[in-house]
């Protein structure tokens, strides 16, 4: 098993994508089997990484530059665990959500399997060109998923998202060209070892960073995210907000710390940190004024992405781990939140906050899931979000950058503001709750389980943080 577990998270969804495209009848069964197989492989892989340190694997025995090399360290393993578990929940939720829409479901399964596979390609690739291919595949399948139901808002938001996504990937590809022109190699590790500051490497750094900031929707490049994430079918909203933005963030993290460490300047890191802080404040304020639940949740994603970028300004092992832990707990919480919001929207006809008044009486599980996921987003003790913010806060204090402490704490307060405003609507007792559709079996429970996991991430953080330290670029935070 040693070594070959690393190809399963890529090959299995890819195989399922092809099979579900041709055989529609068994699509749900095949996807669920894929999910189970992916979880098993990722758990085995994580245990191996924990046990033996970072693993690399050359596909088919072809060495670089012709072959494709895969690499898994603690960061890749944690991201794979995230994509495996959240992806499985999305699979279960979608099986229920699309049960009454066979025409949409037909296209959903192969596209979702493609998106899942390309996400895992990004987490495991060891060369910068293969990362580009993964990025482009993920972008295209994400847009196709978003426009599945063919509604007006989704089509225009998807068109804009596609143009933004292609521009972001092409900026990255130009950066790859410059790096190849300078170093003559593509492997992440080799370029990192030879890196030196020069106009060409700075241009490459700027292109890659701008492209990935665009695709991750970092303020002020977030304009495309709220319409795209809120108009998608709900399982797709969940996977876009929870997983797809993490793909491009992971790429940026990998490149900054493994490829460019010799070329980045503290000022560049501060710039990303300041934009992150601005995203927290601006995204939260816009979330406060939204009238529709899914838009509110989408603006909350803009704000939560801000926290991820603060680590670039703090640059300590704690900050790095805290940022990654935030990406992890946000994935679980935000997927749960979009699923719960999607269930309510489907059941009550639309997601206007006034329409949703009193949903807690009819759909207590969904409202409970929304609330529990909110605890993690607010960063209340002892949720996953709390652990992440705790690490970020202690890093900010340690490096004497107290203004980030203010932003992180203020962001938590704002999150409490917009989430409690939504919860107040959901909990208002009203005699006239008109249910149009009963929620499909399993959809409410899936959201609740994800929200509980997001909460539990605060209590069982030790083994995950320990796994994260394997091959960590800034050194281990655990003495």
């Amino acid at each position, binding site marked *: 098993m040693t070594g070959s577990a690393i190809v399963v998270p890529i090959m299995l969804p890819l195989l399922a994508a092809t099979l579900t495209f041709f055989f529609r009848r068994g699509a749900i069964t095949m996807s669920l089997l894929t999910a189970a197989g992916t979880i098993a492989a990722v758990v085995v892989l994580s245990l191996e990484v924990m046990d033996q340190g970072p693993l690399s694997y050359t596909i088919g025995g072809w060495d670089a530059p012709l072959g494709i090399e895969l690499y898994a360290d603690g960061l890749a393993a944690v991201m794979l665990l995230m994509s495996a578990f959240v992806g499985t929940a999305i699979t279960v939720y979608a099986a229920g959500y699309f049960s009454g829409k066979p025409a949409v479901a037909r296209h959903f399964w192969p596209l979702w399997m493609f998106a899942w596979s390309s996400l895992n390609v990004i987490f495991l690739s060891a060369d910068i060109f293969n990362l580009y291919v993964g990025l482009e595949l993920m972008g295209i399948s994400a847009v196709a998923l978003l426009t599945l139901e063919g509604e*007006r808002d989704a089509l*225009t938001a998807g068109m804009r998202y596609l143009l933004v996504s292609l521009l972001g990937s092409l900026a990255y*590809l130009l950066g790859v060209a410059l790096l190849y022109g300078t170093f003559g190699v593509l492997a992440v590790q080799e370029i990192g070892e030879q890196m030196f500051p020069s106009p060409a490497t700075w241009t490459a750094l700027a292109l890659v960073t701008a492209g990935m900031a665009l695709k991750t929707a970092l303020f002020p490049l977030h304009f495309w995210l709220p319409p795209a994430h809120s108009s998608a079918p709900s399982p797709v909203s969940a996977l876009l907000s929870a997983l797809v933005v993490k793909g491009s963030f992971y790429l940026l993290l990998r490149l900054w710390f493994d490829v460019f460490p010799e070329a980045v300047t503290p000022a560049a890191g501060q710039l990303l940190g300041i934009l992150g802080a601005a995203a927290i404040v601006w995204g939260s304020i816009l979330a406060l004024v939204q009238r529709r639940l899914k838009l509110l949740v989408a603006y909350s994603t803009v704000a939560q992405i801000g926290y991820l970028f603060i680590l670039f300004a703090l640059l300590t092992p704690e900050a790095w781990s805290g940022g990654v832990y935030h990406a992890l707990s946000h994935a679980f919480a935000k997927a749960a939140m979009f699923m719960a919001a999607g269930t309510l929207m489907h059941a009550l006809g639309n997601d206007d906050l006034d329409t949703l008044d009193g949903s807690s009486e009819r759909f207590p599980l969904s409202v409970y899931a929304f609330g529990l996921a909110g605890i993690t987003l607010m960063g209340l003790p002892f949720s996953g979000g709390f652990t992440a913010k705790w690490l970020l806060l202690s890093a900010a204090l340690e490096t004497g950058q107290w203004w980030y402490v203010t932003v992180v704490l203020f962001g938590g307060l704002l999150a409490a503001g917009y989430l409690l405003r939504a919860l107040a609507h959901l909990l208002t007792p009203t005699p006239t709750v008109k249910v149009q559709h009963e929620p499909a079996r399993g959809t409410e429970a899936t959201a609740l389980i994800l929200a509980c996991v997001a909460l539990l991430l605060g209590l069982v953080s030790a083994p995950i943080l320990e796994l994260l330290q394997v091959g960590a670029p800034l050194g281990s935070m655990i003495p």
Partner: protein
Amino acid sequence: MTSVTLYALSGMVVVAVCVYGLVSYPHLIRKILAINVMGSGIFLVFLSFSRRVPGENPDPVPHAMVLTGIVVAVCATAFALALARRVHEVTRSSYLPEEQDPPEEAG
């Protein structure tokens, strides 16, 4: 100026022109074409590096990457055109509705 630098810089100019085209022309087909030609500009930069070391045989790796890049670009362009057609069918317009932007981000 060596021919490698000249080719690489020409590629960069093509990319820059296309970025300008992408942000300044609202028509969807123009935007899609800008993206497509931008890809070609990047491929030109890639190919210029295959003669990185003068006197030696050209490096085949950039060619392999450009071939893969062309396949990706063809798929992306085809998908973008199909999507633009759907947008036109549903909205009867070849432009993205800017008013759908939140007001503070319009422009």
